[in-house]
């Protein structure tokens, strides 16, 4: 199995001897909203300095997973997990006060919708400075200097002027960059970024992804990045998890995933995107017929089976999670079927 090209995360054997616990360890996470199962037994782990990307179609549970880790699920949501640990600390055992002390400080999140974490009533500067002084103390002046510095690093011109503006005075792209800068105020150890660059131009996107890579190298930042963009995944992830209908259907080191995508859903996703430089204009793109199903309570078997070309009667029963080294696939097909 090939390993990542960018700095080696510790090798993953079933029971690795560890000096320090992973930065984030999620096992068998389940989140339900009434009769909707949004996340159904998802497991992820993230080491310090590592980038783990989560991909999958709309509604497959990516954002809910992120919110579950941050303890920010909507009222009425039910969260269960076999394990939910940040740097060895059980997140479920923390009080709301202890959690808020972590959030924005050691673990930060960039939300999919920027306005959910920007307060329309305060200027950009006061919100950014508040995050810093709340967790780290110090003067407001020093916090504002740091804010201006970070705004410049995410490519915002005249940062001093922007600090004095209100969120509604900024374009969508600027707001998204403010959010990113705000998440970085306290030099977090863990950054959960939910579609952080979707509203941005490719040129700005490249700049922000380079900034994240730099922080990772310099500070050992661990990043859980949610995205639709397989190009971003290929370029920055150490490891990729593909979600479908609330489950992780495939997870592998990035090079392995792109070299040998093994779940029919992953293969379908990859066939859908035109690859620059390799497009065949007269040919149709691959596509996955049908839609993500709604999962009723008590559902069993592979959730992809209605859309899968390889579905067989046994796909309605329990489907094995097959493992080859660090490459995991939730499918009945034998390893190497696609080769």
């Amino acid at each position, binding site marked *: 199995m090939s390993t990542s*090209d*960018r700095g080696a995360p510790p090798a993953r054997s079933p029971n690795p001897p560890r000096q320090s616990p992973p930065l984030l360890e999620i096992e068998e996470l389940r989140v339900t909203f009434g009769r909707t199962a949004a996340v159904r037994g998802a497991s992820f782990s993230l080491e310090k300095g590592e980038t783990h990307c989560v991909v999958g*179609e*709309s509604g497959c549970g990516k954002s809910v997973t992120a919110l579950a880790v941050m303890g920010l699920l909507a009222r009425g949501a039910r969260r269960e997990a076999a394990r939910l640990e940040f740097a060895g600390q059980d997140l479920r055992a923390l009080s709301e006060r202890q959690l808020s002390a972590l959030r924005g400080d050691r673990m930060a999140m960039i939300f999919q919708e920027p306005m959910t974490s920007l307060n329309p009533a305060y200027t950009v500067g006061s919100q950014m400075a508040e995050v810093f002084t709340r967790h780290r103390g110090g003067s407001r002046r020093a916090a504002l200097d740091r804010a201006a510095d970070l705004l*410049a690093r995410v*490519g915002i*011109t005249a940062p001093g*002027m922007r600090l*004095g*503006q209100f969120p509604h*005075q900024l*374009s969508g*792209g600027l707001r998204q960059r403010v959010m990113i800068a705000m998440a970085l105020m306290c030099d977090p150890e863990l950054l959960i970024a939910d579609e952080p660059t979707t509203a*941005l*131009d*490719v*040129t*700005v*996107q*490249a*700049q922000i*992804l*380079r900034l994240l*890579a730099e922080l990772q190298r310099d500070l050992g930042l661990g990043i859980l990045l949610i995205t*639709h*963009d*397989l*190009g*971003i*995944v*290929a*370029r*920055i992830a150490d490891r990729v998890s593909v979600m479908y209908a609330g489950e992780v259907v495939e997870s592998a080191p*990035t*090079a392995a995933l*792109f*070299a040998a995508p093994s779940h029919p859903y992953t293969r*379908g*996703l*990859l*066939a*859908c*995107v*035109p*690859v*620059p*430089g390799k*497009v065949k*204009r007269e040919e*149709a*793109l*691959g*596509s*996955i017929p049908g*839609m993500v199903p709604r999962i009723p309570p008590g559902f069993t078997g592979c959730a992809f089976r209605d859309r899968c070309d390889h579905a067989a009667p046994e796909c309605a029963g329990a489907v094995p999670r097959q493992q080859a080294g660090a490459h995991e696939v939730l499918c009945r097909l034998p390893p190497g079927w696609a080769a």
Partner: protein
Amino acid sequence: MTPAIEVRGLCRSFRQRGGLLGQDRTVVAVDDVSFTLAGGGVLGVVGESGCGKSTLARIILGLLPPTAGEVLVEGRRLAAMDRRARARLIQPVFQDPFASLNPRRRIRDIVAMPLVAQGDIPARQVADRAAEMLARVGLSAEQAERYPAQLSGGQRQRVAIARALVLRPRIVICDEPTSALDVSVQAQILNLLAELRRELNLTYLFISHNLAVVEHVATEVAVMYLGRIVERATADALFRAPQHPYTKALLASVLTPEPGLGVPDVGLGETLPDPANIPPACRFHPRCPVAEPRCATTTPHAIMTAGGAAECLLLEGAGKP
């Protein structure tokens, strides 16, 4: 042959209400743009956010008057045309189908609306043609009875496409038609648009942020920068051998799904342009990685390239003023 779209010297500026200091600013969104697009072609329009793509689209659709210049669609001036005739000629498909579909109407009525608005099509024929178009874009008779909120994003975009095509227009202006969709749904919509173009011999103006998508659908590409088309070429030439430094940077920023290559620094610097304050001479010179001193003083003209034209002084050769 008369081009499907001919645009001459198009300009559009906007007054924007003052920012912090309360002064009004004039934003030049489209600045002296000219091009022709032959019938049956697909012109992809790319460029950074705010460079004027949607403004150009709205002017061509007749939804926004230009400050200067003119647009001919199949040789005719839209402004002089009756609304119903215009609707039979050119139609839009926008990014957010939800915003443009009336939430209180059933899908079949939404798609029938353009036919009804023509005023002279018998009710029977309206219903038949709407049903036929809905089937053509892959929506069932049962889905036709629903309301927009009861459909997925991809299904709503199919409705928007059916509504745009039900009058059998010749030209469709697509402004980010798949940007809000999942990659799987995007592929379905792009395939559908390609099929319909072949079948109905349509001409598309196709705006997108996604260069890979444009490479897939377009026959020609226009690259906009701060209101101007700085390079225009056949899709083959543009993607194989971009000529303008901005086009090169844009293409180099595209992250192909190839693991291990990292994220390139394309040398555009960190300063984004301000459309209210367009740099003199070559408008790209403050960010251009290969700019020379003359780029800040001399305005480049369009120079013929292998597959089209580009506005860059370096293409005009060394030593010329």
